[in-house]
């Protein structure tokens, strides 16, 4: 459910336009090179973790601007654990590697169980023991990085990494393609057309329905713009993916997560509770909302999503490394902030986060594509964050 202030609505739509403009900018700067299958594949597969962690971070931030600083280190720790569970390489006699080789299903189950346990612990500490989320997650940010590295050192003293993850795992979470074909992947393209059609249809249909019932609607040109851009974007994406190999596994995961959380945040009572707790916790409490449980769920949810992100990350690098997940929490937070999620809680949407994540992804990839000096890249990143924060501050001032 969106905050209805004009500023918030504007903000959401502005970001979409900014995204398009920035994308076009990079295409121009690279003389069309940016507009390639590579870019899109990269955006989807290598940026997947931002969307997934961003969804979790969104739920946390909704409860009142709370964040999870540990998700990056969680990716490292859980990655190490997961590799420990499922790696098939026992090493050589001189350099033995400690792994359990438990097989993929069991390993995944165990990872999820551990994620659940971690999330419950974190949620308990934050919601019931009332430890500020900052401190709690910062602790794990440090602890998990250390523990993950230690585990990897112990398991594989020579390389300090763990590889040889089973192929089925890699396929499920990164390499796999839905309906693989030779050459141009028609299934992917067709799915793209269907999806684009569905989105446009839904946009106009829901608008019509709302008008009939007498609700306020956005101006027609806005809907057309949104519809046009979305359809173009989807078809573009799917075409490029079709030219590469087809619909990659991470896209399925990401789209699934987005759909689920879109539904939860905009249509369910629990989603409503999240928004309300973040807007005015005391009023929510006195209205019968179990505020502690919401906080607990926010962090439990984050942990589960972190586990999923870990799996995708492991499959992408095919190795568990000590520096896995570095900066991931900042990426997730930035995606939310840039995507219009309020830093004080109670406002923000999953679509906003997606746009924010995509924008950051495009900027990152674009800078690499134009061979921008690494140091300038830092500056650009800094400016983007700065702009988002300033925007947030200004919109708060406007509200007053």
């Amino acid at each position, binding site marked *: 459910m969106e905050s209805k202030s004009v500023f918030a609505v504007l903000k959401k739509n502005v970001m979409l336009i900014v995204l398009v403009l920035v994308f076009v900018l990079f295409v121009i700067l690279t003389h069309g090179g940016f507009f390639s299958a590579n870019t899109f594949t990269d955006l989807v597969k290598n940026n997947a973790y931002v969307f997934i962690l961003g969804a979790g971070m969104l739920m946390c931030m909704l409860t*009142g601007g709370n964040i999870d600083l540990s998700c990056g280190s969680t990716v490292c720790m859980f990655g190490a654990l997961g590799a420990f569970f499922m790696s098939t390489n026992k090493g050589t006699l001189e350099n033995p590697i400690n792994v359990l080789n438990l097989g993929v299903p069991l390993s995944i189950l165990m990872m999820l169980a551990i994620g659940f346990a971690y999330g419950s612990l974190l949620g308990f500490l934050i919601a019931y023991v009332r430890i500020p989320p900052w401190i709690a997650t910062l602790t794990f940010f440090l602890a998990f990085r250390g523990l993950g590295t230690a585990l990897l050192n112990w398991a594989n003293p020579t390389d300090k990494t763990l590889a040889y993850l089973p192929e089925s795992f890699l396929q499920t979470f990164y390499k796999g393609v839905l309906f693989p074909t030779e050459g141009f992947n028609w299934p992917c393209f067709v799915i793209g057309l269907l999806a684009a059609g569905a989105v446009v249809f839904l946009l106009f249909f829901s608008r019509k329905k709302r008008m009939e019932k007498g609700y306020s609607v956005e101006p027609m040109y806005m809907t057309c713009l949104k519809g046009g851009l979305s359809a173009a974007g989807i078809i573009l994406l799917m075409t490029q993916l079709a030219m590469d190999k087809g619909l990659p596994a991470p896209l399925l995961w990401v789209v699934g997560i987005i759909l689920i959380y879109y539904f939860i945040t905009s249509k369910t009572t629990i989603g409503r509770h999240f928004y309300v707790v973040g807007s005015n916790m005391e009023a929510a409490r006195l209205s019968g909302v179990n505020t502690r449980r919401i906080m607990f769920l926010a962090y439990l949810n984050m942990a589960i999503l972190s586990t999923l992100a870990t799996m995708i990350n492991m499959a992408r690098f095919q190795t568990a490394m000590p520096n896995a997940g570095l900066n991931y929490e900042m990426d997730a937070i930035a995606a939310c902030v840039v995507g219009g999620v309020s*830093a004080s809680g109670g406002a923000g949407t999953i679509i906003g986060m997606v746009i924010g994540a995509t924008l950051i992804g495009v900027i990152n990839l674009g800078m690499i594509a134009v061979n921008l000096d690494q140091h300038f890249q830092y500056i650009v990143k800094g400016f983007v*964050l700065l702009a988002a924060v300033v925007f947030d501050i200004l919109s708060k001032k406007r509200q007053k």
Partner: protein
Amino acid sequence: MNSGKSRSGLIGLVAAYLIYIAYELYQGRNDPKTTMTPAVRIICIVFFGVVSVALLVYAYRIWKQGSREEEKPPEKEDESLK
């Protein structure tokens, strides 16, 4: 209303990240591959440094404001008995 304390935390976080960026810029000052002139580099370091300090101050003020608002008695009746 919720106090704006968590908001100050996020702004503080961004400020810290900007300091990190300034630090990285500083660390890379002797990088032979860079296309950044020393002048630009210094300007950027100073810019990000100043901006992050400003943000930190702002975050601190919001935090103090949030604390003050939390301190105010929630019910006007909640005072010492006569």
